[in-house]
């Protein structure tokens, strides 16, 4: 009685999540490198929608508060190599991140910070998220990116792009503004860029010996362009 059936591009979260889980990783997990990416940020900034968009190519019309952590994954092929991207979608409420989410920082390969460009408070929370992240991560060279979500709501913007860009620069992070709702807003490209960056990262070897010969298609060190 609770889950909506598929209708066009907007799909009940539950039904299509199952589809994504059964269909995504058709090549065996043992042969694919695994990139574990944690997605964090305030409540209601759109973390679930972003991860859902990337893993299923759909925008979930009805999402709920995430309790604890949800897990989504998608297998991609980059330069002929099969890679499994695991997205850990975390709860935004402070009490969860204080005592529960730390478990999921273990062996994490990249961090995506998300804020809502129509909600200044969610942007102002970023320093505390970044600080907590530093405490949990053992290594300083774990790639991190900043994503301003909901840029389809142009009339309600509270966080100017230049302000966010300056903040991102000061923390040496690439910054993107996007919308999980609009198909044209490059959610796919953001995560794929991150995957490319991870693929080039020598320390991220899991199930294969080091590969030093991979050529990057996109920038590995410098900040990325904002596509909005």
């Amino acid at each position, binding site marked *: 009685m609770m*889950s909506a059936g598929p209708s066009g591009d907007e799909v009940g979260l539950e039904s299509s999540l199952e589809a994504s889980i059964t269909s995504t990783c058709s090549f065996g997990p043992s042969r694919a490198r695994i990139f574990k990416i944690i997605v964090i940020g305030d409540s*209601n900034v759109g973390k679930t929608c972003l991860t859902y968009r990337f893993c299923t190519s759909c925008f979930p019309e009805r999402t709920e508060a995430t309790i604890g952590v949800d897990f989504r*994954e998608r297998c991609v092929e980059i330069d002929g190599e099969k890679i499994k991207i695991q997205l850990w979608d975390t709860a935004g409420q402070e009490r969860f991140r204080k005592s529960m989410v730390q478990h999921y920082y273990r062996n994490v390969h990249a961090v995506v910070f998300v804020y809502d460009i129509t909600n200044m408070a969610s942007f102002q929370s970023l320093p505390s998220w970044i600080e907590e992240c530093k405490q949990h991560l053992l290594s300083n060279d774990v790639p991190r990116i900043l994503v301003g979500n909901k840029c389809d709501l142009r009339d309600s913007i509270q966080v100017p792009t230049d302000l966010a860009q300056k903040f991102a620069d000061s923390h040496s992070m690439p910054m993107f503004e996007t919308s999980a709702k609009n198909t044209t807003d490059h959610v796919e490209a953001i995560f794929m860029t991150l995957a490319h960056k991870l693929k080039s990262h020598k320390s991220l070897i899991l199930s294969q010996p080091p590969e030093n010969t991979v050529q990057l298609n996109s920038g590995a060190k410098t900040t990325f362009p904002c596509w909005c």
Partner: protein
Amino acid sequence: MRCPRGRGAQWGNAQGPPKGTTGGRAMSWRKQKALQIHQALTSDPIDIDALRNAAVSEGGLLSQEIRRKVWPKLLNVSVLSLPPKPGPSIRCNHRDFNQVEMDVRRSLRRFPAGMPDAERSVLQEQLTDMILYVLQSHPELNYYQGYHDIAVTLLLTVGPRLGTAMLSSLSTHHLRDFMERTMDPTKHMLNYLMPVIRCESVQLHDFMLRSEVGYIFALSWLITWYGHVLSNYHQVLRLYDFFLASHPLMPVYCAAQMVLMREQEVLRGDCDMPSVHQLLSNIPKDFPFETLVCRTHGLFQRRPPAQLVTQASLHKYKSVSIASFHSLLHSSSSQRPDFVLRRQADPEPGALAPPRSQNRLVKLAVWGLSASLGAAALAVTQSALEWGPEILLGLF
């Protein structure tokens, strides 16, 4: 207490009435159980042990009509001492208002499919009021995401007034540990999970330990009593029957039992955290919940918390939820039946006028009952039809 013995294909015996029954006999079994519940409700004092047994045993509380009467009793909530109808001031200046509002707004999935937006909006407003009333009246309690999943189940079953009273009682008992300033007490409750599994299967326990899966997969199960993760509302109600009648740790035992029933599946999979987390997080739609409840009940009897507490990790923490459970059990054993309470509250002709406050209480109770009826009827038409309401309605 009736409890099917597990056997059969993947998880054991399928749910249902006693084996080999025909449709007619199954109906009479339900009718008989409903009658017993009715007798327990009308005995003076109420036979709370019989109600608890009914909530746990096969079929649970059978229908929304019965739940509406029995659920409050399980928490020692009287229909005559309901909280007042909330005013607008309830939303002012509460530290958790924004979070509550945000979560309630996004809780669409928890309302019956096909419900008109206007009706759902009214219920969502009531849901926000319920939560804020409890938080306002207990400043020591902290809202957590998932609390709204419990509140909505109460709202859809017993209505806003009884729902608020029940939520208040639950929050100071079963849910108390989840509402501390931090989630450390919640983690402590989850610490029971692996020891319970170990008691039943060392192999499964060791596999899960090696995978480093932890216990976060069971977090939303525990703090929402599975309301957040199950899409089948009947399954949610069945579990709520069980948990309302049980020890605060029962949802953790239930999580352990669920994992145990999927042991072969887990052992066949990859031994790493994402694989195990993902497998366990996705509860199969056809999971046999009746068997789950029965086996969890047995597991709890076999391995009570006191037996596990000797382990170091469980030893050092005092749980308020667990400590307060015994007082709840004690206080709920001397409840009077509703009809007695109403007769007491209702002034007889010629008698002295009752105190004004009591009179007001009656009005509020009537308001609450009618509101509950409205919401319950609205929300559960489908399920009530399925349970054969004509017989049960005839009884009550």
